[in-house]
């Protein structure tokens, strides 16, 4: 055999190894995410340490850290996959929504509260993670996920078309106001013990106030 063929063989072997390492890394990643999802639900975000997550996933603590920069990043990934499902549902519902812009916004947020009602503490941690020091720039905590904001902006844009949202209104400003109101409503779950229905009622009133602000004069 020539030296060239030997070299090629060695390269192919190295490539197979790299692929194996890659798929092993992906398998670890999936196991960590599954374990984290379970522990965040049962113990809450603060209550689940990286060590707990590693043990539950059956992997070494070190390999959690080689896969994720921080617990905040794990949370961000867990939330992302949950929310992707929610947004998928919302995009399906959107074209069928009827009524005024206020009504359509109310429906959208009601769907959110129903979806998150069982995981409110986790959702609060998701908001808190936005301010996490150790979070890498690639992570998508609350406020940096385009999904929800795009959906709200879509509802408002339709309102402009239908003529119940003024044309001169900066839609992003309205989106941000609604996002602030939405986040605050989650606090009431912790401080006042509100359920999904209670959250929806409070949010409905807030949406009403914001809508008065962009209604045609």
């Amino acid at each position: 055999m020539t030296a060239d063929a030997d070299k090629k063989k060695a390269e192919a072997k190295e490539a197979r190894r790299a692929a194996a390492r890659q798929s092993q890394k992906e398998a670890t990643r999936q196991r960590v995410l599954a374990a984290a999802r379970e522990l965040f639900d049962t113990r809450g975000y603060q209550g689940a340490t990286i060590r707990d997550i590693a043990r539950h996933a059956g992997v070494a603590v070190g390999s959690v850290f080689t896969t994720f920069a921080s617990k905040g990043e794990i949370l961000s990934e867990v939330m992302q996959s949950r929310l992707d499902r929610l947004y998928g549902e919302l995009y399906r519902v959107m074209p069928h929504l009827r009524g005024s812009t206020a009504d359509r916004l109310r429906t959208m947020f009601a769907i959110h509260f129903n979806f998150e009602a069982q995981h409110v503490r986790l959702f609060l941690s998701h908001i808190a993670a936005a301010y996490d020091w150790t979070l890498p720039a690639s992570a998508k905590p609350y406020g940096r996920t385009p999904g929800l904001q795009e959906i709200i902006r879509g509802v408002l844009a339709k309102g402009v078309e239908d003529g119940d949202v003024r044309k001169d209104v900066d839609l992003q400003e309205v989106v941000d106001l609604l996002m602030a109101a939405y986040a605050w409503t989650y606090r009431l779950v912790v401080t006042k013990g509100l359920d999904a229905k209670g959250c929806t009622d409070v949010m409905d009133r807030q949406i009403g106030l914001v809508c008065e602000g962009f209604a045609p004069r």
Partner: protein
Amino acid sequence: MKHISPNQVAAESPVRAPTRRALAKQQTRVKVLAAARKLFSEEGYEGATIRDIAAAAGMSTGAVFANFTDKSDLFREIMTADCETLLDAMREAAGRGRGVEDALLKVFMAGYTFYKSRLPLARAAFGVSWTSESGPTLRALAPIQAMQDLFVEQLNLAVERGELRQEAEAKLRGQMLFEAYLSNYAQAIFEGWSLDALQARAKDQIRILLAGARRG
């Protein structure tokens, strides 16, 4: 160890200047708080440990614990002091306002101006405020509660002056204004918005949130 209640000490020495020991204790507290403020600003709340804070203050962790119960106690103390100062600035700003929108805008801006030089600390505070464990305690701090009330008060005053309708839903509207005020910090922290940009944003938000309460 013999414990002497502060009242007892006061009764025995009614007008005497603070003892050397009390002064030393006071100095220790000041040093620890300065170190804690620095570390919370650099490392965030989770990242700053009592050990690091003690080391930065040049003392033992024991000495820190002799003065503060735990890290959250330290953080609360810093936030209370800052927010009391800010609350005074906000009240003063509200007093200078011409009309309710202007008064509210000045209150917003008093906050953004105050925190401009300490955004990392604001970032740490927002992180804490959104945890379900410590968040409610932080938000319930007297000066923070008073800030929130200040927004509602401004609306009530405007109702009295006849600027806003009687049924202005001042409580909910004030709350929403306060949350809008807080939410803009994310733009300041993560996107480096200037005071001018924050002011333009705040002005629009106030107009939108008050539109339905205007008379006529």
